[in-house]
């Protein structure tokens, strides 16, 4: 049980897809302009991640190795189309806010990355939990970044006004502010993990210091 729980918390902190694996950077920078957008994007990606991880895991013995990437993309695109239609039907405002980035979930590196790194090697339940953890990590990060950028850049949080607009520092809602917030969040999470005694960069095994130790063949030799 503890092991299953760890699959979920792994995606939240130790292997946070955005801040530790540095995947899905494009939607992160583009959508985290507002907290609502970040939260909605995160939930949509979480849905796709759980479904695609489960489907790919269930079909992992059927899909031939040579054509696995096209097969994965087709499966992912199917789920993205479903979530896009659902959002268009039930929340047109969110659809407006996410714009082109909603269909672009298909090529989000987190989803293909987890399919390749995790779902293609693990049973269905584990893959679903991994998808849930990664999705929640993505949602949490995007929402936090959205809150910071929206608060400083527009004076609102989730659309509610905190201070008058004339005191807003508008660069935070533009792309430089996105990169700045992104860098600060990476530094913050790294500092917290280091403080808790996690060794982040190993000098052995010619390790490049990427955070995916759990699945690294070199590190687990």
């Amino acid at each position: 049980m503890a092991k299953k729980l760890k699959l979920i918390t792994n995606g939240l902190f130790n292997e946070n897809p955005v801040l530790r694996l540095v995947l899905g950077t494009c939607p992160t920078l583009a959508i985290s302009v507002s907290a609502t957008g970040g939260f909605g994007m995160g939930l949509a990606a979480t849905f796709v991640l759980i479904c695609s991880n489960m489907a790919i895991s269930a079909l992992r013995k059927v899909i031939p190795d040579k054509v696995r990437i096209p097969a994965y993309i087709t499966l992912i695109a199917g789920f993205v189309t479903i979530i896009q239609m659902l959002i268009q039907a039930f929340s047109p405002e969110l659809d407006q806010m996410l714009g082109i980035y909603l269909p672009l979930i298909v090529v989000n590196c987190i989803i293909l990355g987890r399919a390749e790194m995790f779902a293609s090697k693990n049973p269905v339940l584990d893959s679903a939990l991994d998808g849930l953890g990664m999705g929640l990590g993505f949602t949490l990060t995007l929402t936090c970044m959205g809150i910071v950028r929206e608060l400083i850049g527009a004076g609102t949080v989730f659309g509610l006004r905190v201070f008058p607009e004339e005191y807003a520092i508008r660069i935070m809602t533009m792309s430089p502010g996105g990169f700045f917030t992104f860098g600060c969040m990476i530094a913050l999470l790294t500092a917290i993990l280091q403080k808790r005694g996690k060794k982040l960069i190993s000098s052995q095994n010619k390790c490049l210091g990427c955070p995916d130790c759990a699945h690294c063949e070199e590190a687990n030799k």
Partner: protein
Amino acid sequence: MNNLTVTSSPHITSPRTTTGIMLDVIIAMVPAMIASFLFFGARALLLIAVCVACCVLSEAAYCLLAKKPVPVGDLSAVVTGVMLAFNLPATLPVWQAVIGSIVTIVVVKQLFGGIGCNFVNPALAGRVIMAVSFTGTMVNYAYPAQAADALSSATPLSVITAGNGAKLPLWDLFAGNHGGVLGETSCLALLIGGLYLILRGVIKPIIPIAYIGSTFIFLALFGCEAPLASILSGGLFLGAFFMATDYTTTPYTNTGKLIFGLGCGLITAVIRTFANSTEGVSYAILLMNLIVPYINGWTRRKPYGTEAAK
């Protein structure tokens, strides 16, 4: 052994210190400070004081928090503060100047390693961040009460962009009796400060001459009807003498400095002539700052008797 500092040769000592150089720069900026007081009143001095105080305090606070030695004594934060204030209009709300100063010192200077490590000029980067963030107040220029009619409600560059540059009174442009940001208006005061720096050996005249000269030539080539009025307007003299001569963000060699000055002039002239914005000095210097490592690579000196590096 701990008392020894081991460094590589050449072991030349010089009485010149960072503090001394920064003090010279501050002295050189005094004429422009006086000019800004004469044209824009006491509020100019208030903004300069606020920027200097915030720059020094935020540098000290950051270094204490990061457990680094506090470098306030080298006066570089004071220079940055004055330069940032020189880039602000006199009507700017004080809280915006405070935020601009903190961003300039903490984000642009200290996060990249402090003095000698910043990759762009902190005051200019701070100015651009403020210009993007506070779009309304950063262009809300003040105008001197005694300005000539043509210049009482428009900056010289916007007059030139509108096609009326030939009518501008050149002496007023040179003396600084027109609207703009605090430190840029008076070419006369900036020229006095620049000459002081050159005579004291703090800066070499290559970059200012190459920058201002090439801006004039490129403007004339691009068909600007009043190139002389254009180089006397805007932030060109301030940028050329005080911003584009910063040691950290300019090339080492004379050839490199020449390329740097020409590049700044070209970009400024292109922006002033063809772009949607009237002024291009900040972006010109920032863009050239970014390619300084490459200029240093291209203009590396060849040791005597060896083949040119490939």
